[in-house]
């Protein structure tokens, strides 16, 4: 049995996260869509906090709610003649059907499945522990190879992005 606070927090954050994600679909203006996307990411960061993921929640706010929307706003501003409208393509009906069917099917399976001890556990049953030190130990210990590969991937992506958008200099 959880306390009332955690239940209210879960339902409120879930409603904001899913509602503003739907708003990204419905918004007619691309800039409004980016703002709603930030709201959805911040609400998801709150859901991460209810799951005791303090480090991931902070990283989510910094990267998803901070850095990526800035890039998106830049991209929208750098493509002025393309218009600000958030129009739909011919695939709107199949897209909505596929997305809705996926959500409904996974929800039914998740609610019906026997999760054993994991399904019976509630948020109140476990204590809140800080995760940053454990994640740091794991990244530089067990997962150090993947960590190094990720750093090379980031470097390659950033250099690639700079090379792609650089204006050609007159020789």
């Amino acid at each position, binding site marked *: 049995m959880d306390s009332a606070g955690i239940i209210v927090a879960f339902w409120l954050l879930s409603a904001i996260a*899913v509602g503003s994600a739907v708003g990204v679909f419905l918004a007619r203006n691309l800039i409004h*869509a980016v703002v709603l996307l930030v709201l959805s990411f911040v609400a998801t960061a709150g859901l991460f906090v209810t799951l005791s993921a303090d480090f991931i929640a902070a990283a989510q706010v910094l990267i998803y709610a901070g850095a990526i929307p800035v890039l998106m706003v830049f991209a929208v501003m750098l493509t002025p003649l393309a218009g600000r409208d958030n129009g739909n393509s011919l695939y709107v009906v199949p897209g909505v059907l596929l997305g809705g069917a996926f959500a*409904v099917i*996974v929800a039914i399976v998740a609610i019906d499945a026997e999760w054993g001890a994991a399904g019976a556990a509630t948020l109140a049953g476990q204590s809140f522990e800080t995760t940053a030190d454990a994640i740091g130990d794991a990244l530089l210990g067990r997962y150090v190879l993947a960590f190094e590969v990720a750093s090379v991937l980031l470097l390659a992506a950033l250099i690639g992005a700079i090379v792609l958008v650089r204006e050609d200099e007159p020789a």
Partner: protein
Amino acid sequence: MSVELAHYLTVGAMIFGVGIAIALAKRNAIAVLMGVELMLNGVNLTFLAFSRFGGAFDAADAPLAGHVFVVFVLTVAAAEAAVALAMAVLIYRRRETVDLDRINLMRW
């Protein structure tokens, strides 16, 4: 009344489903990228829910493996956003559009 694993999985699936709909239905390449980011976000929520309710703090051999996976998803999402938006700007510079229905140079 309590919040359990299935609730978080349902919310993650709903966010992922909205992301699918946006990625398929939008014409603007930047809007499609927003849908992909929403899909990754729903997956991250699922990872953290399993990590929390599966007793990740007590796992002796691989503690917080779900959290570490989410860190890598965040890294790859940042790299992907940087390259994809650079490509959108580059295509706009050449074709003056980022409308995916009109970028059909390679259509058979």
